[in-house]
């Protein structure tokens, strides 16, 4: 359940931003969670609700966006979209695939009042 400690990071970042931008309530939080980021979106949502209690983001809704993972095939050298780390190359059928994108884990934007 390292999603809980990630939620604590999110809370800290939002609190910092609230002091900087002078908002007192967060309605919505958009998170970008890459498919290879070692994070389970459902666990993150669960942790979010619990950890945000008592902060400016208490009761805020969470939108999780995921951009596809990209990998380079070491056999055909082409770049392709993959779903999991052990997928074979969707272009040549071989592999192995070396991941080049998909581990993003960030707060993209906030809707605040």
């Amino acid at each position, binding site marked *: *359940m*390292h999603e809980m*400690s*990630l939620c604590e*990071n*999110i809370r*800290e*970042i939002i609190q910092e*931003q*609230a002091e900087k*931008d*002078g*908002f*007192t309530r967060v*309605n919505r939080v958009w*998170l970008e969670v890459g498919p*290879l*980021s*070692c*994070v389970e979106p459902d666990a993150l949502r669960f942790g979010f609700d619990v950890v945000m209690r008592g902060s400016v983001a208490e009761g805020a809704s969470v939108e999780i966006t995921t951009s596809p993972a990209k990998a380079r095939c*070491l056999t055909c050298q082409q770049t392709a979209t993959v779903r*999991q*780390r*052990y997928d074979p190359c969707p272009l040549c059928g071989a*592999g*192995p695939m*070396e*991941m080049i994108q998909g581990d993003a*884990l*960030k*707060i*993209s*934007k*906030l*809707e*605040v*009042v």
Partner: protein
Amino acid sequence: MCGTCGCGEGQVQIDGKHHHGQPREIALERDIMAKNDGYADANRRRFVEDGILALNLVSSPGSGKTEILVKTIEMLSCATPCYVVEGDQQTSNDADRIRATGAPAVQINTGKGCHLDAHMVGHAVDDLGPKPGGIVFIENVGNLVCPAGFDLGEAHKVVVLSITEGEDKPLKYPDMFAAADLALINKADLLPYLDVDIDLMVANARRINPRLVIIQTSAKTGAGMADWLKWIRTAHHLAAAAAAE
């Protein structure tokens, strides 16, 4: 701050008027791991400047990490000062086992925590005060999931997988095998008693990470330990060379 309601939005103006109570969007693009990564960078700088090799050992509980470390330190410590950061939810059993070899060890108890983070490790390394040119082994909390996502400032993650865990562990827990540079397949002495296909285990690990170096070891019999020590010495030379630059 807004003088009308104290909402803290007094500085926001739209068309010259105080913008009040209307939801607005703020683009952030802030990395959630940034704080940990900042501490990890500081740890890494310190290790590089002092020519210290730092290795982060990760595995599920019971793979034999501590036993490997005990044997490794006994084989290494005449030539190189070794230090250990031990991570467990509870007890100081592992640090006690390491200290019995004569190597300094600090035990971090994470309580309910499932991983070590770079901030904890920085403090533990302060307590250890490793000499320049030494080796710091960080034995992470036994967990094949969460520690994969946390950079501690180490030069390499080393994943330990015991053969009793089955061939498909790399496929079931791919993040850890993707993050590691070296895999030790431990308890190899048990192979004659098991139905495990070790070639398939190796192939599965390479499906996740084509560049993974894999060494079969038995901390109990000593098999493969010479190859593991050779790998450590090479990495240690590279750390010394980086410090000299």
